[in-house]
């Protein structure tokens, strides 16, 4: 018996110590095919600059597509590299030379109690054929597409559907002090900015700990329910940091229906969700500074909601929250201030699933800014609210769908789902 146990233990140790080499690419048929295709696509001198012996495969959750990172000889891999998207056979689907420059030359070390900080800088894309080159700013980690100054907010919103920032700088403490690292969403970088968001894995590209090896983590979206309630006043105070003169303002209302693609469903019982509606406020200063805040109205004790009565409420930061439809309006400074005041006032109301829920709150704020949006009210099963029914994410979704069909370009619906932008957070 002891002998058997010893053998079993030895096998366990052997398996535990076996090095994972799933992310490495050997010189197999696939890699040979990639190199051949690269050689065909690039000029000879350009091909010669590639460090082909150090090609890395970026782990992604797709069996059809491979993502390859090709370092460039004598260049820092975290700032200069070739990114390739290939099929299983090694054919190049898309390839881009990428150059990333931080806005500040200093290492981005935030205070020790911080775990992540925004990245500001520039990203330069260059196609394999060298014919196309584009430089875009990275603001708070998001790659921002700009057509002109007036389009900046809407373009930014389009990019930010993708959700989490494309570049994240993280810090962590160790015995040697504070280390930091750049994490890139390489999948977002290789896709065209107009592509739907299709991945959320982040790859460590370099950092202050001297590490120069890539590692990838799969980051899931943080559910708002895991976050504590916010001090809305401190969130709204941030808008005063940008002067009103010359600024542009937008207010967005977003609907997250409980079952994607089925707006007739009032509940997703397996997720304990009746859906959600939230508000996004954007202020773009004349100097290009952007302030964005996303927030929503929640019950403070959700398990009491089935009582149907008034219960306490709380505000939660809805950054990166899922949505199925949203509607954006441009407003002036007075209207924007009215939205802020309405948010402050209505955040103190009691939550009632039938008579004052997240959709009522969001509509109050949106209409205070001149949204003039009225939606169909439905009777929530089990929670009747008189003959008129209640405001629900489903009603908002249907209204925005109608606006989209009518050709309103400010209204946007998604067949499946997308994710909202980031919030600046509180200001003191």
């Amino acid at each position: 018996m002891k002998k058997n146990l010893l053998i079993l233990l030895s096998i366990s140790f052997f398996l535990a110590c076996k090095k994972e080499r799933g992310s490495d690419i050997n010189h197999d048929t696939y890699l040979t095919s990639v190199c051949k295709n690269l050689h065909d696509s690039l000029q000879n001198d350009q091909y010669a600059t590639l460090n082909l012996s150090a090609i890395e495969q970026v782990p992604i959750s797709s069996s059809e597509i491979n993502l390859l990172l090709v370092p460039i000889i004598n260049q820092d891999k975290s700032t200069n590299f070739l990114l390739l998207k290939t099929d299983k056979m090694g054919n190049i689907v898309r390839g881009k030379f990428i150059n990333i420059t931080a806005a500040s030359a200093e290492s981005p070390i935030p205070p020790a109690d911080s775990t992540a900080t925004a990245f500001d800088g520039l990203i330069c894309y260059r196609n394999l054929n060298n014919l196309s080159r584009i430089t875009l700013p990275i603001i708070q980690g998001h790659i921002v597409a700009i057509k002109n100054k007036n389009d900046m907010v809407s373009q930014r919103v389009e990019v930010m559907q993708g959700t989490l920032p494309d570049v994240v700088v993280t810090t962590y403490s160790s015995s040697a002090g504070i280390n930091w690292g750049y994490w890139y969403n390489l999948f977002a970088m290789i896709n065209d900015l107009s592509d739907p968001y299709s991945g959320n894995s982040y790859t460590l590209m370099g950092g202050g700990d001297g590490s120069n090896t890539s590692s990838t983590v799969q980051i899931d979206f943080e559910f708002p329910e895991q976050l504590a309630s916010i001090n809305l006043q401190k969130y709204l105070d941030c808008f005063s940091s940008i002067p009103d003169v010359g600024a542009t303002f937008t207010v967005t209302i977003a609907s997250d229906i409980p079952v994607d693609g089925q707006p007739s469903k009032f509940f997703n019982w397996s997720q304990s969700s009746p859906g959600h509606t939230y508000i996004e406020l954007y202020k773009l200063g004349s100097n290009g500074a952007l302030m964005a805040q996303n927030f929503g109205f929640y019950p403070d004790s959700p398990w009491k909601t089935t009582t149907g009565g008034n219960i306490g409420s709380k505000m939660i930061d809805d950054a990166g929250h899922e949505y199925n439809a949203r509607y954006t309006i441009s407003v002036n400074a007075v209207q924007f201030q009215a939205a802020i005041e309405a948010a402050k006032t209505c955040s103190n109301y009691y939550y009632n699933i039938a008579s004052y829920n997240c959709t009522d709150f969001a509509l109050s704020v949106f209409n205070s800014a001149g949204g003039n949006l009225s939606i169909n009210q439905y009777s929530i099963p089990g929670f009747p609210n008189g003959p008129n029914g209640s405001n629900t994410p489903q009603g908002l979704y249907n209204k925005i769908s109608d606006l989209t069909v009518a050709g309103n370009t400010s209204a946007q619906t998604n067949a499946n789902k997308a994710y909202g932008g980031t919030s600046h957070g509180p200001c003191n």
Partner: protein
Amino acid sequence: MILVTGPYFGGPYIFFIYNALLDGYNFAIIGGAAIVSTLSCMIVNRSARKNSMRLIGVVLMFASLFVFFLPSKGYLLIYTFSQAVPLTTFLLFILIITFAIRRSI
């Protein structure tokens, strides 16, 4: 008696089972079967069959909860168990179930 909750909505688990049953959710079908099995044992006279039905009811109820919590990637679990009242109802449920199993065996 169990209270479950997400960020927006929560309440007695039986309320979820009742409503989700109409939409054909798996956890509700299993939970419904658990309730039927448990209630049936009250009208069965033979002790052996009574105990086995009670045991089946318990197993099905756990299976229902498992199926309910599993697809939520843990966030329903986190939210339910981070609040005192829902957590207490769960602990009471486990206590009662333990007694029920002891009686059945």
